[in-house]
């Protein structure tokens, strides 16, 4: 997996960094360090509808690599609550905590007059996440000595595509917003609650709205 990520990173960076030398960025500023929050309220389980927003928080570092592109790496984390439904209508309030590393290429749309870092953009990227299961007290498995639920983990890899708009204020502050669509292409879990975790994490990925703020360096 690490090898895959490394190759991907090299591919993206090499391709874009050599494409247009001498890129100026915003008045010469090329680096954006920022924070991002995203949420995906609709794609949780039915019971969570309107109640869970699946907030994720994180930071990112982006570099303007060409007239219309910026390359970024990001780190996100989350703590997702979820109701696990067992037989006999038994519902347990469990939690999945995780963090992800990802990289993305943001392309500003030429037809809409976008020039990095301002304008409408589309964004493609790949995220690698590690998650850990935290059973609720009402989870029947937590008292079952056959399961060590606290050791339940999942690894996931999900490519994404996002559409949004990015602006600059006061020549320094970068803000962006948009919608992101992702689909997990690789999930590896330990048994027992694997199905729940996979579903829960996949629901988080499908569609999310993001807001980001950054500083131009």
């Amino acid at each position, binding site marked *: 997996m690490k090898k895959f990520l490394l190759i991907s990173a090299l591919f993206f960076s090499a391709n874009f960094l050599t494409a247009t030398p*001498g890129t100026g960025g*915003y*008045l010469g500023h090329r680096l954006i360090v920022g924070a991002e929050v995203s949420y995906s*309220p609709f794609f949780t389980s039915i019971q969570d509808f309107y109640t869970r927003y699946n907030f994720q928080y994180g930071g990112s570092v982006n570099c303007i690599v060409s007239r219309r592109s910026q390359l970024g790496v990001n780190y996100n984390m989350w703590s997702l609550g979820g109701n696990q439904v067992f037989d006999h209508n038994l519902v347990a309030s469990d939690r999945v905590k995780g963090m992800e590393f990802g990289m993305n290429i943001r392309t500003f749309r030429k037809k*809409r*007059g976008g020039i990095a870092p301002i304008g409408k953009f589309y964004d493609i990227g790949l995220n690698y996440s590690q998650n850990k299961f935290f059973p609720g007290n009402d989870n029947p498995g937590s008292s079952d000595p056959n399961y060590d639920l606290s050791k339940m983990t999942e690894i996931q890899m999900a490519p994404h595509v996002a559409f949004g708009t990015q602006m*600059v*204020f006061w020549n320094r502050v970068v803000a962006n917003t948009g919608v992101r669509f992702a689909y997990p292409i690789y999930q590896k879990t330990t048994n027992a609650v694997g199905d729940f975790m996979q579903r829960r994490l996949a629901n988080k990925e499908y569609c999310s709205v993001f807001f980001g703020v950054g500083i131009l360096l």
Partner: protein
Amino acid sequence: MAISNILRLTAQGPQNNLFSIQFCHFLTLCNYHKVRSNGNFDYMNNPRLFLVLFMLLPALFFAQTPKALPNLDNYQSARSNGPLPKEFLISTAEKYEADKQKIDQAQDKKMQKAEEQFYLQTNYSVDQMRFSGEVLVNDTLSLYVNRVADSLLLKQDPELRKKINFYILRSPAVNAFTTNQGIIFVTVGLLTRLHTEAELAYVLAHEVIHFKNHHVLVGYEEGVKAQEGIGQYDETTFENRFLKRHRYARGQESEADIEGFELLLNSNYDPHAAITAFDILSLADAPFSDTTFTKSFFESNYFRFPSKFYVDTIKAIKPQNEDEDDDLATHPSVYKRRKVIVKRFGKLSGTDTTGNNFLVSESMFRKVREMARFEECAEHTAVTEFNEAIYSNYAEQKYYPHNHYLDREMIRAMYGSVIKKNKLYSLDDLSALFASLFASALEDDEKPVGEQGRLAAFIGKTDATGWNVAALNYAWEAHLRYPNDNDITLWCTGLFRELTWKNDLRMKDFEKTDSVFIAIGNKAKADTAIAKKIKGDSPEARFQAGIDHLEKDSLDHFHYWQFAFINELKDSSFVQQFRLAEQFADSIVASDSLWDEKSNREQRKIRTVKKNEFSGPQGISKVVAVNPMYVAYDDTGANQDVDVSTTLAGHDKLVGEMKASAKKANLDLQLLDSDDLDTGSVERFNDLVTASEWFDQRQNYKDNQILPYPQEKMKAMAAKYGTNYFMWSAYLTYKSKRHFTFFRILSLAALPIAPHIAYRLATRQEDVYYISIIYDVVTGKPVYVQRTEMLNQKATDARLRLHVFDLMRTLTTPKKNK
């Protein structure tokens, strides 16, 4: 009145003399005594009139001795001179702020706001006009007009005189108008029609009254009241409000007519000039002359047009219809206005109504009028009114044959006309073409009007090839007369290219000897029926009869233009130019056929590469930016118009960003901007005018076409500024109401997910466009073209800054090696 005006019109050549003026006055007197029948004079049935006319004949004979023509042998285009006036140097925003102080705070808030808006709009519009390149400052024409204004006003109201400045507007229209700021514009077209200085004085007097009585501001306020239904416009329908508003405007005009007349009466000018001034106005749409047009002007020994192109019968020029309904007009009909002044004369019994026709100088007046007529030829060409340009020039050449300036302008106009004719016809052109083709067979109503109409019909009927040959013939002759005139040489090249490229002709298509030319003439002479029609016995006359009367078969498929260059083809430089044009046309044909052979995919790819080349790095180190434009258009309010405040602020930001970004990107940027001038900047002002004119012209023609514009001027500017690269750029923002389409309504459903959608739905739609074009003004070709559309995006400062910086950086970045 009809005949009087036409006679006057035909008598108004440069020799416009005492007789023509006396005659005009005589006819005016006739009108005054109502000896008209259906608008036309019947001299033969009116013995009294005939007698008076007969008595005037000695005067006619005596006065017909032409006065010396003003010498315009070395005439150069009018240009601004001297220090720039103060009002050219104060920014629009400052003028607006100063005007705002004049607003009466005691009046209704709505009217205060309207007045504020008025000052904003008028200051902006006047400044736009001032820097449009159409206004002349301290040139011979405007200095003269100001001197006439002195004669009119200095004794009567010296304080008023100090408040007003008169400028010449380079427009062929017959017009004069005033602004609330004390600027009165007089068009070149008006100057060309005048018979006396006194007439000009009356026109100025009329405009001065508009200024004195604040008609512009009051009229605007009245418009606001009419729109809002305030005051006299209360409780009435929109139509009635509209009619009332126009009645009010007509009232203002009448007031200016009468008070202006009083001003003229109290001056030393002849007050009768007020009446002849209205005669000029009634013929405002007619050219300044009605000199008979003959096709021989465009012919040479071996080049004759078929007579069928020449329309024999034309309609006479008639003045404005006397019965015209002016209910929907802002001005009363000229007929009514004139009648009021004539009546006013009736009430002046006992008052001395004599005066001078010239107070400043008669010779100066004649010079100014001739200069204005010279200028008018160029102005028609500038606005692609080629027929009018050719006719005005033709009329002036009767008095100034082989004048260098007129020759240049004639070539420009003919070249422009050739380009237009060689283009595929648009729907409008088609209707004009059909009208001219069938002109001789048309009903009286549809016949060409006046000699200018005859010339327009002639050009319309002439085939594109023949007209191209005629233009080249004319241009080459001029080239031989002025071999050092590089512009004429370049226009010849352009005409050669049109001939070979658009008309697909080669040297072999033209005869080198006159044997066939003579044979056609002899064939015509041999036919007894045709022989009778031959005027004179020259080979040219016989050839003319041949192409007019011989059957097509007898002409052996020869075209009338094929013999045009028999003499020229003996000239090696002509042959060389022709060859170069052939090579040019061949290269275009070859590249066109190569292009056609390519697949759609390949064509798309090449287009993309070319587009990227045009909008990509250029490696330019120095650029002259000409009048960068920022326009904010607001389509959301009741007045869908330019948002002047945003536009003014935006222009400052744009210019500021251009300077800052250029510095950052290491680009040597020279700004030719209206805000960048001082009193001593008249040269920069003229440069701004020249460059703006050039850009205007460039947009009318294809990239590979040589412009019918004095290219030498641009070459001189390139040398002066040390760069060939001149940039035209515009930043446009457009605000509009958001339309609630089905998609937008659907997006309401997404509000719980993305609440920021609410912001978009609640705010106005805004689109931004940024266009930059850089030309190499020496070759005349574009080197950089970037047109960015930012639809549904806000015009933020950061966006402007980024795009300007990106442009400067792209220009300085070296071109990629392929």
